[in-house]
């Protein structure tokens, strides 16, 4: 059985929200990276990853998210996360991701904070 990832995007004024549905493993991480880099090419420098539809991730997938964070730092952009399960949020804290990509409880708060930044 394959646990694939579906990714959809909502382009908004000055910010794009990326929604994930499924397992973020290496293929899932690559899919998120592909979509993220396309959005950067379109001119979006603020991205929000809404993981409400993702209940499991692995460290290979998260390593690809670190590549995206690195890219965002390079271009002086911003990446945030919202709607994480408690375990995914805890894992991001264990790894230190939250120091470089803020984590928000819900999408509305994330959009407000990222657009204001």
């Amino acid at each position: 059985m394959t646990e694939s990832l579906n990714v959809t995007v909502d382009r908004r004024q000055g910010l794009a929200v990326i929604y994930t549905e499924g397992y973020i493993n290496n293929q899932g991480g690559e899919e998120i990276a592909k979509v993220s880099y396309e959005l950067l090419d379109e001119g979006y420098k603020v991205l929000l990853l809404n993981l409400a539809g993702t209940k499991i991730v692995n460290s290979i997938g998260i390593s690809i998210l670190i590549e995206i964070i690195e890219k965002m730092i390079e271009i002086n952009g911003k990446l945030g996360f919202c709607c994480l399960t408690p375990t995914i949020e805890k894992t991001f804290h264990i790894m230190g991701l939250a120091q470089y990509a803020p984590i928000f409880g819900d999408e509305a708060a994330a959009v407000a904070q990222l657009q204001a930044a």
Partner: protein
Amino acid sequence: MTQGVLSEVELALPMVPEMEIEASKIATGIAESIRMSPDRIDEVRMAVVEACINALEHSGASDRKVFVTFQVLGERDPEKLRIMVHDNGVGFAPEVLEEPTIEGKLKAARKRGWGLKIIKGLMDEVEIRSGVEGTTVVMSKMR
């Protein structure tokens, strides 16, 4: 009285993509059966995924198998879930592994290498046994 093994389940999984998901499903079922809280079950599930991926990626096991043993421990009632993830690979020296940091990984070409740190952060007890007969990650979570 000391904790004994109340029940035990053994799995032998082929090293194929997403075999870690199958192991995590068994972990979830056993943790639910001892009424572990949902958040703790989710942490166990993630730790099992990471331990299986480590075996898949780094063991170099010629039999291309991962062996997972789940033990429910307790005096009379379930108190703890112990999970042993074993491979018959080449082994490694855990004491020389450098702990990854986000600062280091942001600058590094290789961003991977987080598995053990995540497992240690999610489980209550973790022990790594590694040598010429392979590697076993022994990890436990109180109910």
